[in-house]
């Protein structure tokens, strides 16, 4: 029985006073009072009052791993969609291949998917990503699922507990981008199971005891996956 419910707050909701607490993410201050600025879950546990957003595009943070889809190949760079408010730029200097000027299309083309990392976010929110890291590459095969970026921590779970469960019971390779895109590879049934389970986690992300519930469900269906 889930007795405690995490508190949902909406923009303009009064959360506390500056004299008692500090204003964290998702809040704004006016005349010494702290208010929520987005629809989200209230996090009041430390000295900071934070609101974790429930909806909205991915807000890029340097060093985040993200799954991107190439929008356009240009002369010495590519434009990549990473589910943020802005497309990201991937420069030829930031990929592991040696590319001649104008040869970008031979390596990455419109519609290709990549596992990248956020390199830089400047003041005007101009974004740059990189593929230069041994964990980064052009994705081949599999399926890409989408969730609200705010639900990513839930999909990963505390110390990766949720994602480990998923991998174990479906025998799929799974990679979760901070930007709400999840790459899944395995056999057909395995991929289907992962997609369904992710949807379930997303729908019930706010309830407690979810990890156990998911484990039970996955255990039940294990016989069907070889």
């Amino acid at each position, binding site marked *: 029985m*889930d007795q405690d*419910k*995490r508190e*949902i707050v*909406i*923009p*303009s909701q009064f959360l506390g006073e500056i004299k008692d607490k500090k204003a964290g993410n*998702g809040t*704004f201050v*006016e005349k010494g009072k702290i*208010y929520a*600025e*987005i*629809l989200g879950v209230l996090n009041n546990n430390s000295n900071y009052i934070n609101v974790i*957003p*429930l*909806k*909205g*595009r991915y807000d890029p943070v340097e060093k985040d791993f993200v799954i991107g889809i190439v929008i356009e190949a240009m002369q010495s760079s590519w434009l990549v969609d990473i589910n943020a*408010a*802005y*497309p990201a730029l991937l420069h030829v200097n930031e990929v592991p291949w040696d590319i001649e000027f104008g040869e970008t299309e031979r390596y990455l083309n419109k519609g290709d998917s990549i596992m990248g990392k956020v390199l830089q976010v400047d*003041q*005007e*929110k101009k974004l740059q990503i990189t593929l230069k890291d041994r964990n980064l590459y052009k994705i081949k095969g599999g399926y890409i699922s989408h969730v609200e970026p705010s639900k990513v921590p839930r999909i990963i779970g505390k110390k990766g507990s949720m994602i480990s469960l998923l991998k174990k019971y479906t025998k799929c390779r799974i990679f979760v981008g901070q930007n709400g895109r999840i790459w899944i590879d395995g056999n057909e049934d395995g991929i289907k199971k992962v997609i369904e389970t992710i949807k379930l986690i997303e*729908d*019930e*992300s*706010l*309830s*407690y005891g979810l990890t156990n519930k998911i484990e039970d469900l996955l255990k039940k269906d294990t016989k069907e996956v070889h």
Partner: protein
Amino acid sequence: MKSEIKLFENGKRLDGRAPDELRKITIKAGVLHRAEGSCYLEWGGNKVMVAVYGPREAIPRHTQNPLRAIVTARYNMAAFSVDDRKRPGPDRRSREISKVISEALENVILVEKFPRATIDVNIEVLDAEAGTRCAGLTAAAVALVDAGIPMKDIPVACAAGKIDNQIVLDLGKDEDNYGSADLPIAISPRTGEILLLQMDGHLTQEEFDKAFDLVLKGCNAISEIQKKAILEKYQSEQGGN
């Protein structure tokens, strides 16, 4: 417009309402699949659907503002939403309403967080019965929250007017056409600041004050309905079984 119709009978209006009574309002958040934020609202005979897309990079480049997001509200009436079919496409009235709504919304959206971006608010009136701009703005506010857009308040709009020399809240069908003043107002409920204000007709200063007070009361009541609609959508997603 002076009318032959008696808009008041025994202290009750044509539809049976008291002078300070709102029409029935129902609001549902998050009703569309593709839109990032959406809202469906019914207000008396009005039926409005709003979809929000963004923030997303503004294209073409020259429309970008390097310091903040541009908010574009597009108010449109469906051809079948009125008595005499309306030709599809924006007319001057729709464009003016789009502008005043955009300006009201821009005030409360934290636009500095999204330089070079655009936030598109699409307001479709599917069935019209007086007060569509207030219905549109009120629904747009909910759709923006549903889209996860950061705002310092959830704006709300309502109108008051004068019929048969009486100041009344929320003009309905016929009252709109035959009344002698119409005052739609949008406010930021947290601070009471006025974000949209238009008036046409004839009001004395006392009448204006009276109408203004009524509208504020109406707005605050509607604000509760907006907030409830949002919480209903998201609270039901907790540990649902």
